[in-house]
C-alpha cells in the first residue's frame, strides 16, 4: 500500500503542469482506497489459500472475523467509490486506469494467473506498476513516455522482490498449491532468475536519465542502487544450505534494498 501511494505521488510530482494540493490529495486518496479495495477482493477470493499459509492465516476472513460475503460487498463498494470520486473530482482517464488496475489485480492476477502459472507475479506485477501512470494522468490528463518508464521499473522490480520472499515461504506456497517459481522450478532456478532480473533492472532503473528525463544525480543514484541490488542478488545466488542462517537475512536485505532502490529511482529531478 505504501509503495502504491508513494509511486503515485511521484507520478503526480514529476508530471509537468500544476495540480492543486487538494486535487492531488484527492487523487492519492482515491488511488489508496482503490488499492485497499483490490486487497479486500484479493483476500475474499484467496481465503482458502490464506487459511493454509502461515503468513496469511491470521487475516480476517480465514479467522472468521469477517464473513466472505461482507468482504466482497465492502471491496466492491470501496472500488466503486474510489473510481467514481477520482473520475468526478480529478480525471475520468485516471479513473478508468484505476478501474483497470483493480480489475487486473483481482481478475487477471488473483483469479487467473496466481493459481495457474509460475509467471503469476511477472505478469500480475503490472497491477502494482500502474499507480505512477495514474498519478501522472491525474495531473496532465494524458499519458506519455516518462510515467511508462516508471511503470517499467516497478514491473521489472516486482518478480525478484516476490521471488525472494517466496524462497523463504516455499513450503507455504507448496501446501497451498500456488505455483510460485521456487515450488515449480526449485530454489536454484529461482535464485538464478532473481539475479538475472536484478541485472536487467540496472539499465531499466537508469532509463529516465538515459532518455534525458532526469538529472545526473538521479542516474548515479539509480546505478548505485541497482548495483546494490545485484550484489544482494549475487549473495542469494551463491549462499547455500551450509550458511542457511544468513540466507533469509540476505534475502530480507535484498527485498529492503530493492524497495529502496525502486523508491530512489522514482525520485528524479527533471532536467530543466
Amino acid at each position, binding site marked *: 500500500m505504501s509503495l502504491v501511494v508513494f509511486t503515485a505521488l511521484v507520478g503526480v510530482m514529476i508530471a509537468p503542469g500544476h495540480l492543486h494540493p487538494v486535487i492531488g490529495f484527492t487523487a492519492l486518496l482515491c488511488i489508496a482506497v482503490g488499492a485497499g479495495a483490490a486487497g479486500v477482493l484479493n483476500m475474499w477470493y484467496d481465503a482458502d489459500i490464506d487459511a493454509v499459509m502461515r503468513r496469511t492465516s491470521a487475516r480476517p476472513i480465514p479467522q472468521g472475523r469477517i464473513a466472505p460475503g461482507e468482504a466482497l460487498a465492502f471491496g466492491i463498494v470501496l472500488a466503486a467509490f474510489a473510481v467514481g*470520486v477520482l473520475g468526478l*473530482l480529478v*480525471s475520468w482517464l485516471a479513473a478508468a486506469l484505476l478501474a483497470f488496475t483493480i480489475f487486473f489485480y483481482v481478475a487477471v492476477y488473483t483469479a487467473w494467473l496466481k493459481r495457474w502459472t509460475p509467471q503469476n507475479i511477472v505478469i500480475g506485477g503490472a497491477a502494482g506498476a500502474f499507480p505512477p501512470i495514474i498519478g501522472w494522468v491525474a495531473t496532465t490528463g494524458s499519458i506519455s513516455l516518462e510515467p511508462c518508464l516508471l511503470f517499467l521499473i516497478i514491473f521489472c522490480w516486482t518478480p525478484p522482490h516476490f521471488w525472494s520472499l517466496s524462497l523463504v515461504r516455499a513450503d507455504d506456497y507448496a501446501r497451498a498449491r500456488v505455483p510460485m517459481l521456487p515450488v515449480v522450478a526449485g530454489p536454484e532456478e529461482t535464485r538464478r532468475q532473481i539475479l538475472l532480473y536484478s541485472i536487467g533492472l540496472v539499465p531499466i532503473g537508469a532509463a529516465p536519465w538515459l532518455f534525458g528525463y532526469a538529472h545526473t544525480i538521479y542516474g548515479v543514484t539509480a546505478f548505485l542502487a541497482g548495483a546494490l541490488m545485484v550484489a544482494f542478488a549475487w549473495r542469494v545466488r551463491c549462499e547455500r544450505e551450509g550458511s542457511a542462517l544468513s540466507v533469509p537475512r540476505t534475502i530480507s536485505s535484498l527485498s529492503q534494498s530493492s524497495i529502496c532502490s525502486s523508491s530512489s529511482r522514482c525520485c528524479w529531478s527533471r532536467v530543466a
Partner: protein
Amino acid sequence: MEERPKRIILTDEQKRRRRARSIAIALALGALAVLFYVVTLVKGPAVLNRPL
C-alpha cells in the same frame, strides 16, 4: 391461535459491532461530503468541466 413471526434478536456484541459500523459509515460519508465541498471551492465554476 396465529403464530407470531420470529424476530432476530441481536446479541450485545452484535449490537456493538453494528453501532461501530454505523459510526464508520457516517464518518466516511461526512468526509466525502467535506471533500466534495472543498474541491468545489478549489475548482470554482470549473468543477463542471470534467475532461478525459
